[in-house]
């Protein structure tokens, strides 16, 4: 009763996948240096 709020989950990676057309979520966790070159 002291704190009220909203709770919801947002798949940040999944939204990025939709926005940038990335097909495999694991690419976000591998740290392959080439991954970022697509966004420069």
């Amino acid at each position, binding site marked *: 009763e002291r704190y009220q709020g909203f709770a919801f989950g947002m798949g940040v990676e999944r939204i990025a996948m939709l926005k940038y057309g990335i097909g495999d979520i694991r690419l976000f*966790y*591998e*740290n*392959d*240096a*080439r991954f*970022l070159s697509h966004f420069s």
Partner: protein
Amino acid sequence: MRISLNWLRDYVDLRADADELAHRLTMAGLEVSAVETLGVGIEGVVTARIVEKGPHPGADRLSLCRVDDGTEIHEIVCGATNMQAGDAVALARVGTRLPGGLKIKKAKIRGQASSGMMCSERELGLGDGHDGILILPPDTAPGRPVVEVLGLPDTVFEVDLTPNRADCLSVVGVAREVAALTGAALRLPQPNLAESGEPIAGQTSVTIEDPELCRRYAARIVRGVRIGPSPRWLQQRLQAVGVRALNNVVDVTNYVLMELGHPLHAFDLQRLGGQRIVVRRARDGELFTTLDGQERCLDADTLMICDGDGPVAVAGIMGGLNSEVEDTTRDVLLESAYFDPANIRRSSKALGLSTEASYRFERGTDIEGLIRALDRAAELIAELAGGTVAAGIWDAFPGPRARRRVTCRPARVSAVLGVELSRDAIVNYLQALGLSAVAETGSETTFEVPPHRVDLEREIDLIEEVARLHGYDAIPTTLPKVAMTAGERPAARRTADRARDVLVAAGLTEAINLSFIDPAEDERLALGADDALRRKVVIQNPLNSETAVLRTTLLPGLLRAAGLNNRRQTGAVRLFEVGRTFHPVDGQELPREVQRVGAVLAGEQCPLGWLASAQTVDFFDAKGVVEGFVATLGVDGLGWETVTDRPWLHPGRGAVLVLGGEELGWCGQLHPDRAEAYQVPEPLFVFELDLDRLQQGSRKPGAFLGLDRYPAVARDLAVVLDRGVPVQQVLDAVADCRGREPLLRSATLFDIYEGERLAADKVSLAIRVVYRSEERTLTEEEVQRAEAGVLTHLEQQLGARLRGR
């Protein structure tokens, strides 16, 4: 859950049309995912009777039937084989339209005239059945519209219920909701039984050996029944909700299950040993054949219904082959019981057996309402199958509990929903659901919860009910009011941001790794058995063994990433990570969390190009990155010392960063064996720093000192000293001179020489020393005096001598 609106109308008046009602129910949390109309488009189809069935003269697989529609006889060619003379069927005569656009015409089929079609379920749009034509109940009079006979048209809702609404798994349950939502009156079935004969107490007995798992078991007996098909209206209702009709007694139990939501079971009384019931757990390994013909192996956690000899049913899930109602059954024992939901769920999973009954028991049934269900079923069986109901109910109810009470504060309801609701309005809403107000103080009301609402446990559950009935769409939309404060990023965040910016500017790429690592990394890093880094926070239910502990160093993630990049030939390895490590603390529940920055470097210093020289990174590149970063933090008093105890570093090729005697981090070349274990290119350089401590030591720039106005004098010195003296010491020694030699401004190493012109154990350091005064231009004598002071100090401290002397 399929709900037939025609059936629903028995219990509540539906004032809205189907779509409106579907919308209303959906908004109240009972999502209507599909609305099906049955029996539309078949108005022209009539009932008829097959007077004669004979073979088609010209085709083996067809038959020729003479069908009476009450007015005339039609000759129909038919390909189905499931009908016989005397059967009542659904006839579409010439000129009738069927769903799907088919119009019946006079036809000649293999030389024989056919004027009409006997329809299957599918042709009538009533279902998928097309193995044969629809056979109507034998007492159906010919010549009537078939929709009348079938109780059509009907609308069927497919309702997707949330798991907490077990009370809606029945027509009456949904009727309750409709009544609460629309204000219409609810008409519950009121069984009106005619009992006769001996009291039930003399005819059977029920013993519950496990009252935890079976909190109530009620039974009735109906004697002298005649097993046969159920009447048309009952079969049709069962079909509308997706249940197969079998025989009148079993159909009644299924009907009451669908109507009231309480699962019942009918036993053949004569097949029960001792004509009595014992409710007990099975024994481990006991075998039992359920009425689907499958033999099951039971365990001691499964509750069984037994007779005087042994098991006759798996409680709450499925009856047994040895006790089920058959065509010759005359006396029926009806069971209406309450079983522990968790146990039924467990047993259902263990046996891989899920039924309409187990589905409801798992979610919680109405422990009081089971009596009404029992009476209703007994009444229907007596009515439809004949027979007399024995007097009384055997009701084994070992531990009745008082109904649940929940207290609700109207002020809180309004606060949570954001709508002002009066106490009376709230009470009205809850009363519409069957709750009753039993106590009242100024600020709160206590309600008694009806036993069919197993999901209402706390005040917030009641608030949710008020919201549902009031309508979520009736709650006005407002923006939340939040007190604004000027925030700022906490210091730890700012330091992490700074680290990222500086390292990216140094040409590294940020890597992000999970904080969970594989305990086996300790071996790959060759940590000593007593190494403090081995003490880790262990995760209680890890996803897998590779994410089972919390990291105490950023190394494993960075080295794995380096290995992956190396295998994929992505180029030079230049990765850093800013992240937390977790260190258990004795006597404390929570670990100490330290924010660190780590990096791995290998490969070319610069990308391939025509102007840059192709040099690979070395230790000093890594050290330079560290020093560049640390400089931006303004931490005073940092120094480097030789590393002694980092087993993953190449011996002799590493250093620790020290502040005030404490180690803040380290930097060095990865040991070749570790490099092999992680499949990283060699040489690979790594560092890791304690960001929290660095940030603590950082200071903001001090007061501006003004720019130097007088020229400086730079003198280069070459000093020879023993190999093995750290350069830092030499530079520190020079810096120490500042006290006596205020003209000293800086000393920078710019060359190192070792070789032929020196003794084997000596090395020559070339240092540029800068002298400057704030007040005047220096004279040659002053500079020489200062330089002599420096040299003397170096000689005294380190035995360093000017080269050439």
